[in-house]
């Protein structure tokens, strides 16, 4: 009996050690910081929202600040707006002066829960590597339902149950009168 118990406990401990992640595995990503990638000629410097705490179905404006990293003017730029990796719109034919910046915007009808909003830059139709910037946003879901409807339905159900309970007497009374 004791032997079986010991074997069971050992089995459970082995299973737990396999299921639960070990600190060595959890920390395997902790290494030396990688060197920052070299900036492309144009990149997204900042993302702002017209409303930082939107509710579901609110229309919010996403602002992206594009920065020209070079001293010469750069034209034929396209800013692409993405929500959770899916394109929702773009602004094309942009021109940014040397060392200057430009703000682009896109309206989005907010959908509930967490989303990642990204903007990337295309030049001459090609995506510029490391030009993308992402920012998370949480959209408060619209309230669902009300208190009145379930209360009314519960009351109505109880009423119908009691009415059904007394209905044989009512029917009997009507039949007897006839």
């Amino acid at each position: 009996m004791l032997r079986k118990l010991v074997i069971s406990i050992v089995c459970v401990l082995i299973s737990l050690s396999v299921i639960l992640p070990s600190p060595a595995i959890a920390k395997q990503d902790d290494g030396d910081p990688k060197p920052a990638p070299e900036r492309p000629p144009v990149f997204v410097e900042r993302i702002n929202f017209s409303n930082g705490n939107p509710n579901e179905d609110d229309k919010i404006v996403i602002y992206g600040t594009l920065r020209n990293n070079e001293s010469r003017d750069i034209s034929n730029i396209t800013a692409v707006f993405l929500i959770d990796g899916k394109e929702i719109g773009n602004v094309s034919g942009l021109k940014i002066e040397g060392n200057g910046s430009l703000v682009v915007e896109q309206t989005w009808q907010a959908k509930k829960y967490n989303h990642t909003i990204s903007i990337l830059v295309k030049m001459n139709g090609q995506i510029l590597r490391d030009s993308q910037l992402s920012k998370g946003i949480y959209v408060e879901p619209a309230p669902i339902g009300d208190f009145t409807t379930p209360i009314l339905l519960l009351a109505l159900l109880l009423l119908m149950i009691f009415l059904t309970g007394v209905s044989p007497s009512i029917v009997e009374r009507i039949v007897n009168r006839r």
Partner: protein
Amino acid sequence: MSFLGDITTDLRDIFRTTGFEMLKHIRQRRILIAVSIAIVLPLIFYAIPPLFGMDYSSTALDFASSNLNFITLFIVISGAIFAGDAVSGEFERKTGLLLFPTPQKHTSIYIGKYLAAILTLFSGVTIYYLMIIWEIGTIYGFSDIPSELGKSYLVALLYSTSVIGVIFFFSSIMKRAITSSLVGFFILMMILPIITSVLKTVSVDPWFIVTNGADLITNVLGQSAGGFGPGKEIGTGNTITPDFDVGVLVIFGYALSLFWASLIFANRRKME
């Protein structure tokens, strides 16, 4: 006897049967089982995270939502316990031979049984929600108790009536109590959720299925549905969620229509 006297007698008979049935549930320790489940299930969510050194959900709503993912399971289990043998048990155990010859109308007997099942299930659901409220109070503070929890509670009560309706219906048409309990349980736990999942996979809104409306118990909290039990699909990737008004009306429709159908079938049954 006067008309009012007839009605008063009917109501008194209904309440007497309800009281008797509830006493039966207490004596058979069914209420004890249901209350134990209602206490233990929410306690799992309260006790497990600290035991494994994990944090609770970031918000009280998240916590309530994950906890309530199992309330549908609790409702169906308790519904099967309380209503499974309500009618079929009388015929199977031949106790109806003593009960049915009494001057009391059969309708009032069945309604009393139905009400007893509903009231006991309501008390179980209430305890489940009180446990969640207590847990939220101790973890996040009592001021953080979300008002949406009240809405969820009302939908859970409404859903309980339809679950009792489904199981009571099978109890009134089937011969054996165990069969009626199991059929009702599996229809609510497996068959209807599978149909719901398949319909959602082919992008058809299963608004007419009662277990789909059970999703509203957690949906009203504003959190995404998940977990196990009726109306919970794991990993289907669909985004069809029930509309609140349609959902509660469908639940109400099931409860009322199945209650009436049960009465019709139960009244037609004869002791063999």
